């Protein structure tokens, strides 16, 4: 008997009324580098999260020790905790029916079979490109991670689903130095296929950016229009909206979007989707972490709030259908509703056109601290580390060290002037470049 099956069976034997085992095996290759490759790690990990219900009492316990003895003990411990837990009055049952969507582009056969030397070679070439770009530039830090994971979910309702996924991320930073002035340029990408990872291009762009920012300075405080680069806006979108559109936040009174279904929460040209079937998307997969099929859900359509994102628990509580958004950040954590791939639908304006039609403003290329924005109040803040002043339709001076702030919900309603055509992702968040009418800048 496989261990997941054993865990479920033992949980029932110890007195559970329902049980679900979630087993994950992951192999990760992890390379750290600076101006040369520093280290290469091969990490093989596995673990099982066991969720049990004793009527309306719940517990989850996990272990990375996958032996029969430990699995039995884990089942016993989980049931023991559940028995003494207070009842959850809203608990009905685990997801009873598993299924699969026709999602594509979440597993790379080539990565599974790749020779390590190919990865090292491609990365070494990229590092050299960065060094050769300009003698003021030095690669200072970076990492490349590739993972192959295998997830099995099995429940006491006799259901079982299994999926294999690949994920690749790379991140690298160049530093430029001249006459005591220092600057950096950083690039990152998150993809599902080895062939989609263009390390050379990233290296050159990071180097180019570092050189351009040698003379960057803060500007005066004030209010200006800003153009926010796609990956930066994607990150902000995820930080602010992931929680408030989550049915759990709505049910618990934590979401500013509670009681707003069917209402205008954004300008008419704003469409935001959650799409677990997006081809090659960062969180694309055929079923969620409770075995429910993934789907495409309209969150905001023509500015109107259409749907919240559900897992089976929150759906049963609202008498709604799960939207296939159950997500376990790690195998040992309980599933919660979370976006799969959250996307702001692109428009048709190019970045070039956006810059050309701006008399005075800022193009924001990179920020830090945007994750400090507050999804509950909508307070948006980020520190620009790499921005350009736009004067009469052209990028002029590089800018650093100014803080932007505004309210994201107000921006959604009437703050977005233009929506770009260049959709890109920061992990599971997707957005095109956007131009905001005006935002507060705290500077000198």
């Amino acid at each position, binding site marked *: 008997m496989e261990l997941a099956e054993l865990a479920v069976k033992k949980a029932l034997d110890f007195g559970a009324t329902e049980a679900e085992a979630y087993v994950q095996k992951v192999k990760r290759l992890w390379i750290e580098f600076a101006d040369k490759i520093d*280290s290469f790690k091969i990490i093989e990990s596995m673990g099982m999260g066991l969720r049990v219900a004793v009527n309306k009492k719940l517990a989850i316990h996990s272990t990375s020790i996958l032996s029969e003895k430990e699995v039995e003990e884990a089942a016993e411990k989980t049931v023991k905790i559940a028995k003494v837990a207070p009842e959850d009055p*809203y608990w009905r049952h685990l997801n009873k029916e598993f299924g699969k969507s026709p999602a594509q582009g979440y597993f790379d056969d080539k990565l599974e079979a790749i020779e390590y030397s190919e990865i090292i070679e491609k990365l070494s070439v990229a590092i050299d490109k960065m060094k050769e770009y300009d003698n003021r530039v030095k690669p200072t830090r970076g990492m490349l991670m590739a993972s192959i994971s295998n997830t099995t979910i099995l429940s006491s309702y006799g259901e079982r689903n299994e999926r294999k996924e690949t994920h690749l991320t790379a991140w690298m930073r160049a*530093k430029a130095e001249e006459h005591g002035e220092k600057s950096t340029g950083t690039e990152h990408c998150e993809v599902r296929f080895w062939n989609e990872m263009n390390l050379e291009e990233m290296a050159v762009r990071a180097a180019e950016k570092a050189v351009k920012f040698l003379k960057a300075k803060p500007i005066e405080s004030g209010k200006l229009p800003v153009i926010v680069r796609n990956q930066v806006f994607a990150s902000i979108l995820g930080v602010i909206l992931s929680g408030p559109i989550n049915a759990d936040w709505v049910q618990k009174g934590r979401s500013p979007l509670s009681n707003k279904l069917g209402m205008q929460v954004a300008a008419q040209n704003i469409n935001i989707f959650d799409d677990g079937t997006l081809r090659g998307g960062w969180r694309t997969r055929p079923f969620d972490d409770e075995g429910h099929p993934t789907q495409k859900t309209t969150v905001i359509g023509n500015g109107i709030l259409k749907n919240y994102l559900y897992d089976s628990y929150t759906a049963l509580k609202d008498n709604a259908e799960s939207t296939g958004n159950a997500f376990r950040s790690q195998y040992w954590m309980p599933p919660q509703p979370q976006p799969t791939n959250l996307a702001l639908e692109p428009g048709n304006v190019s970045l070039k056109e956006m810059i050309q039609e701006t008399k005075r403003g800022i193009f924001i290329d990179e920020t830090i601290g945007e994750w400090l924005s507050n999804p509950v*109040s909508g307070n948006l803040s980020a520190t620009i580390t790499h921005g350009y002043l736009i004067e009469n339709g052209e990028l002029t001076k590089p800018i650093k060290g100014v803080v932007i702030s505004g309210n994201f919900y107000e921006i959604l309603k009437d703050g977005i002037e233009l929506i770009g055509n260049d959709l890109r992702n920061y992990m599971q968040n997707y957005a095109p470049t956007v131009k905001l009418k005006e935002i507060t800048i705290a500077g000198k």
Partner: protein
Amino acid sequence: MEIEGEMEKIVKKAVDLGVSQVDVRYQQYDYELITVENKTLKSYSSRRLSGLGIKVALNGSVGYASTCDLNYASLEKTLENAIKAAKSIKKEEKHMVEAKVSQIEMKSPYKIDPIDVAPEEKVSAALDANKAAWIDEKIKSAITRLGISKDYRIFISSEGSKVATETTMIGMAHESVAKSNGIMERVPYQESKCAGYEFIESMDLNSFAADISALAVDAVKSKTPPAGTYAVVVDQNVIGLLLHEAFGHASEGDLVSTRESVLYGKIGSQVASEHVTIIDEGIIEGGYFYPFDDEGVKKEKTVVVENGILKSYLHDKTSAYQFNVASTGNGRAQDFENLPIVRQTNYYMKPGDYKFEELIEDVDFGIYIRGKGGGGGQVEVGMGTFTFGVGPSKIMKNGELTETVRGVVISGFILETLKTIDAVGKDLTVRTSIFGGCGKMGQTVRVGFGGPHVRVRKMTVGGR
């Protein structure tokens, strides 16, 4: 312990295979998290993680492999993987200093083992705290978490070191969300300690959550501050965060050796005002217990800045080699799946001699920046830019605290901001957290930070 024998066999085998240096690290990590939302138990999760990682140095290159499967055949395969990884990058040169050989076992002190406390008792403590949060009809949501961890690590190296450490930690976190006139605000806060369940028993669970709710209610009624650059007084939480983000990361030897950090080449120079002395220390009251690092090196007290002069960077064995100094015991790994890199331990500012009233009395207009309810921070060490979100704060006018402001974000440049510190308080507090940690290169580790109240003459404050 049985595993120690297996680890020693792996070390011997690696040496036999021609590996010049090998570190074997075992870890067993137990963790429990109880979450109560709106007076109901949301989840009780517990976790046991154990495994082993092997680091090999071979012809100057480093390979690493880890596994959760602890039977000996799997450990041998893991060693092969580590060697294979090292060989795949064989052209590189990598050197490390030697560590002083230590053979020791150390445990953080506690009275009541929190893992052994009955689950229902822990659940009821979290429920009690949560129920006390509903002080006002403006409170719309309240989340309480009780966290417990026990981190046991064994380090055995071919140099002859054998170090075992155990750190037991516990804490409670709470977040209240308040809504008033269509505006929502949330205030999170937590208290943790390297201790046992006696820490929870000593807490006043009623006032813990009620105070956080009161702050949320106060904040939701308040405005955001005017954007600009001001004089500020920061509290102990914020100075800790500020030093950790704004200076600590830039002082990490690996970031300095690649010249990524703005502190490169600054040893012996003035990097902060003369009032500033900064220390990194492995064991301090209120902080995270970290007596030895993950390279088997004792974490000594490191004076990073003394009276404004940069004295030392933080080092692991690799960065120490590059600077021709000894490791300061800052080679830390999140867990057995990760290689140690240079990390802070408990990073704090040494107290001065000002009273709080003296710090604010000559500020005409500024902000008293408070950490409670804040959200953390980030730094870009190359450009020297830092930023972080703090809690509801107070406007200072003519030497007095006036109205509350919310949504405060502060930002500055590492080498400029600390030079504008002109007064340092006497009230040192160091804190740690079981709920969060510090992230770098994909690894999160627990840290401690703090300091006294400090006056900073120029800080950029983002508002609306």
